[in-house]
């Protein structure tokens, strides 16, 4: 996997290089919009991490809009110190695939990068999702584990569907809040954890191998790997 980082702050760029490197990416770095543009069009990248505010005459938003106009479809994650709703909307409208506000944790960044790369162990055959012996029928809304039916509330179904679509990837609490509940704030209590443990009760309690794992300091992952 090859990733391009466009970030002018040297320390943040160093941190990103190291983090992405350890996650298995080969990383190129540009510290201004012009170099970023040159690299993005001349090399083939799997993903681009783009700072929104860049020195010089080409800022992140302009760069993304130009790349998209030229037909570039590489997934782009925008990093920005501007976190207001309108800034977020502008970033996504210009062609970014996701928007992460600084300061951020590398875990959150990697999880979101995975999500926009749509890399997943999960296989979707027709209208069913499957992870190991966990099966979900998207049409009839039926879920079974090892052949035994599991009864889920509508929201639990949505939660599990999101986890299954991103099976093998770390999914953070923020991602769950945004995508399952459409909540764009951070509840001060551990509500998400409680929802997860209820779901775990239903799908993992009677199985030999638990699928829904907690990743410390990051989030959750639904995976058949030990």
């Amino acid at each position, binding site marked *: 996997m090859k990733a391009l980082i466009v970030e002018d702050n040297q320390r943040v760029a160093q941190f990103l290089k190291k983090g992405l490197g350890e996650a298995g990416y080969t990383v190129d770095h540009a510290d201004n919009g012009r170099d970023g543009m040159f690299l993005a069009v001349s090399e083939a990248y799997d993903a681009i991490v783009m700072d929104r505010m860049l020195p010089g005459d080409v800022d992140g938003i302009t760069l993304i809009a130009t790349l998209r106009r030229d037909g570039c479809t590489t997934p782009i994650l925008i990093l920005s110190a501007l*976190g*207001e*709703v*309108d800034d977020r909307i502008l970033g996504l409208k210009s062609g970014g695939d996701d928007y992460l*506000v600084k*300061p951020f*944790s590398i875990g959150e960044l990697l999880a979101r990068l995975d999500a926009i790369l749509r890399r997943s162990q999960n296989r979707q055959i027709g209208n069913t999702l499957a992870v190991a012996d966990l099966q979900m029928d998207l049409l009839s809304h039926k879920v079974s584990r090892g052949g035994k039916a599991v009864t889920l*509330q509508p*929201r639990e179904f949505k939660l599990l569907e999101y986890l299954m679509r991103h099976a093998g990837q770390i999914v953070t609490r923020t991602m769950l809040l945004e995508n399952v*509940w*459409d*909540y*764009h*704030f*951070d*509840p*001060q*209590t*551990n*509500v998400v954890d*409680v*929802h997860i443990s*209820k779901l775990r009760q239903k799908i993992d309690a009677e199985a030999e191998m638990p699928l829904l794992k907690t990743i410390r*300091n990051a989030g959750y992952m639904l995976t058949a790997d030990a």
Partner: protein
Amino acid sequence: MRRRLSASNITASYVAISVVVLILFAAPILYAWDTIVEERSTERLREDGERLARVLDRHGPQALKTVIDAMVEAQPPGDEKFILLADPALHAQEGNLAAWPQSIPDNAGTSRISFTQAGKRIDAVMMRMPLSNGDQLLVGRNEARFASARTLFWVGLVGAAGAVLFFGLAGGMLIRAMLLAEVQGISRTAAAIVAGDLKRRLPTTGETNELDMLAQTVNRMLDQIEQLIRGVRNVSNAVAHDLRTPLTELRSRLEELTWSRPGADDVFPAIESAVQDIDRIIAIFNALLRLAEIDNGLSRSGFVTTSMTRLAADAVEFYQPLAELKSLHLHFSPSPEIEAAADPLLLAQALGNLIDNALKYATRDIRIAVQRDADARLAIIVSDDGPGIAAHERDKVTQRFYRGDASRGTPGTGLGLSLVAAVAKLHGGSLKLTDAHPGSEHPGLEIRLILA
């Protein structure tokens, strides 16, 4: 260069236009007057002359002289008609002119002449008419008869033009002076505000004229600016206070590591705690930014038609498992569908904060309701059966970073209720805190998020 549209320019243009209009009005009158009077008077002279010629033809020269005498005698005073009969050598024979005037042209027809009679200069229109016996007849009319009317007209015209000029210029100068005074008032006030005196306002009279309305609008704008600036000051004070505490903790934690240099087993937990400290600071920071965003009214762009019932039901469903874990009951009876224009993301966060709060303090039951009040205002109500908030503390809990005695030691940024209050304000409403069960051992707290 574009010409400046100042009060003096407007005045000058106004006066110029008035004068042009006056000329357009007077010129045709003057022209018509001159033409008509001239024609009529010439016609009358010709009639007189022809009548006298007929007298000569029918009754002879003696009769003509008698008639001329009679006409001159019968002439009413002021109606100065001139008649003169002269022989072919132009010697005066009969009539009221002493001699044949020198300035009469040789050929027949009308002419405008001046001559002197009895020491008086006279302007007259004269018609010379040769008679059948070779004599010459002169009939004329004194112009002075009309001169006074003409003079009167001119005096009137010049007077009117003068009045237009005077009142136009004076009025213009007056308006200019008033505008200048008003504008200088605004600019003095603005200068004072720039210099830091935020309390200054423009004087208003309460009348409904344009300038006063402008002054009132400017004052409302100044109110808003003052409020915003005070908000900024409050926030920076609060930020200074509430961010310094965790930053101090973080700093001491890290500084301790630099001098104590513990082994790897102790370093990593310490680093993890430091990261948690930072996350707490970020949470406070984000809450502050969100508050500022709401206060600025920027989020009004996110208003859409929202089902309040759906929003509340979702929030209840979201917090249900947590309530069960704490052995609390969340009661929500879905009311009939209620819709309103609102920002669903912010309302969800506000309602989340309220339920979060209630979950912290309730002993057994939490009730959530969406309803229209008696005055048709939409309210989202969250009530619990906890210790409640003393009446004197209620105003303070919505202030930034205020944390009641009961809440010390519980997690939270101290910004939860201020955010709810700000969201209510953004929707044109307010926040109302009362006892949920007045008089009871656990009075509880009922919070009404009232939307406009």
